[in-house]
């Protein structure tokens, strides 16, 4: 399959079941909502070392938020419910409770109910109060800028993490430009995040390493400077590869985001140095979700 001069490999991305949640963060203005959300989703690129993968899904208008203030929605994914609950509580406590004017609300109505601000209330040292409206409990914690307002619970659902595709280009600037175009298109798709810096990862990994202590190491088959040393996947004209990793609330969401991203890359086409699209997998043995590139782009 070739789209606008870009070859689509006959391969698939292999993704895993994860647990996901959404938090709506509001503040006095969008600047401070972003500040809280950026802090909350910091150091959350990969579950390998960060515990969770998190990112900002989109901005919210005042009409979309529970308290009528501007906000952003944050998605957070982990490999299990216990680690997700722990990370959510930690990040809420250090990044949202501390951020001026910020408030936090549930972003998923269904699913399993997990603590959002339930335990943060104890920061109030006995002066905290709760209110119930519309069947939901909120906590008011007195803080130095006024009151920190948070919903007690949010929803946790079964989700999909690790959807991906690789952009193979003739140069590093062209690979990055294609990645940026893909991310711009994918950020319009709801229910997904691309957790790596700027949505793009340049250090794709393979499972295992020659060093016993490491579980993952550089994906040498896609490293352009190792073409002559390893069993390379790259043809001579490929000089740079960028990967985009996708976490979504469902496999359909990941599929939509993959389609949006690859379409944007293909719109740039071979004329802009993009030569191939590929994907990372483990032979289909580890992850239950397989996203076949040609099937998605058909």
């Amino acid at each position, binding site marked *: 399959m070739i789209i606008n001069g870009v070859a689509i490999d006959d391969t698939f991305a292999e993704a895993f079941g994860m647990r996901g949640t959404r938090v709506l963060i509001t503040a006095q203005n969008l600047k401070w909502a972003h500040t809280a959300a950026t802090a909350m989703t910091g150091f959350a690129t990969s579950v390998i070392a960060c515990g969770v993968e998190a990112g900002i899904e989109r901005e919210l208008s005042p009409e979309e938020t529970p*308290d*009528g*203030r501007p906000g952003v929605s944050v998605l957070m994914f982990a490999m299990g419910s216990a680690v997700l609950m722990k990370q959510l509580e930690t990040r809420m406590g250090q990044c949202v409770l501390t951020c001026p004017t910020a408030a936090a609300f549930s972003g998923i109505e269904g699913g399993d109910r997990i603590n959002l601000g339930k335990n943060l209330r104890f920061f109030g040292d006995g*002066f905290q*109060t709760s*209110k119930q*409206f519309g069947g939901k409990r909120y906590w008011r914690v007195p803080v130095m800028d*006024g*009151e920190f307002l948070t919903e007690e619970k949010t929803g946790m659902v079964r989700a999909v993490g690790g959807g991906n595709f690789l952009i193979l280009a003739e140069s590093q600037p062209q690979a990055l430009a294609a990645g940026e175009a893909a991310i711009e298109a994918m950020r319009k798709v709801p229910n997904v995040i691309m957790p790596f810096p700027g949505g793009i990862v340049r250090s794709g990994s393979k499972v295992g390493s020659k060093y016993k202590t490491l579980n993952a190491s550089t994906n040498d088959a896609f490293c352009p400077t190792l073409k002559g040393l390893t069993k390379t996947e790259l043809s001579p004209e490929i000089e740079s590869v960028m990967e985009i990793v996708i976490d979504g609330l469902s496999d359909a969401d990941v599929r939509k985001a993959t389609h949006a991203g690859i379409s944007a890359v293909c719109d740039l086409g071979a004329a802009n140095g993009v030569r191939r699209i590929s994907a990372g997998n483990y032979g289909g043995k580890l992850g239950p979700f397989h996203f076949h590139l040609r099937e998605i782009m058909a």
Partner: protein
Amino acid sequence: MTALTLTLKKIPQQRIDCSPLTPDALAGKSAADIAAIPLQSGKNTLRVDALFDVSGDDVAEIVFMNGCDKLDYIGAAMHSGRIIIHGDAGCYLGFRKKGGEIVQHGNAGNFAASGMTGGLLHIHGNAGDFLAAAIPGDRKGMAGGLVIVTGNAGDRTGDQMRRGIVLIEGNAGDYCASRMIAGTIGVMGATGDYPGYGMKRGTLLLFKPPRLIATIQDCGMHTLPFLKLMYKSFRDLPSKFAHLDQTRVRRYAGDLANDGKGEILLFS
């Protein structure tokens, strides 16, 4: 099907316990069965058809016509359905009601909404003393649901109230929110003496400056973000409270003689 309509023939000599006449209790009963239900009246019992003209057949909606202040326990313990009262009601209106709606066009007696845990009680008129309060011997008053009073409420509104929302568009009597455990009470008119006496937790929204006891303390003017959530929950209510939008209030906290976590929010 038309609503089951119970038209009071004449004002009874004794108080009547109307608690058997709820949509849940009448479900599946025929007209003859309903007419034969015994109602307690003092030490006697009277058949429903001795007190009321009975018409209609839809027991999910019960209409009381010619209501009077001798009709106690209307809507007591009801779970679902709707009761409409044209005229006054006696004491214990909506007593321990768990769900459904009661809409009254008239005045309610004492202890309306006592022990209520869910649903709506809308009184287009005045409520007596101890609205949403605990009856003697109970440890908690209203514990959920919503009460709207378009007129005035008597003394001790919300005494030992545990949860839920009471919105009074008129005035409230003395000791409003006394010994309140939690929940929200709003009074658009004036309040009598000493609102919040013995208040443990909960929120009392006032629009006119109250005469407070010394153990309720002024915490200053504040813009409270949670009020936006509360107003949003009021937005669709058939009440003047649906139009609130002011988040800047003066906050009083207390009663310090009883834990002190209650608050009175005064709208200027």
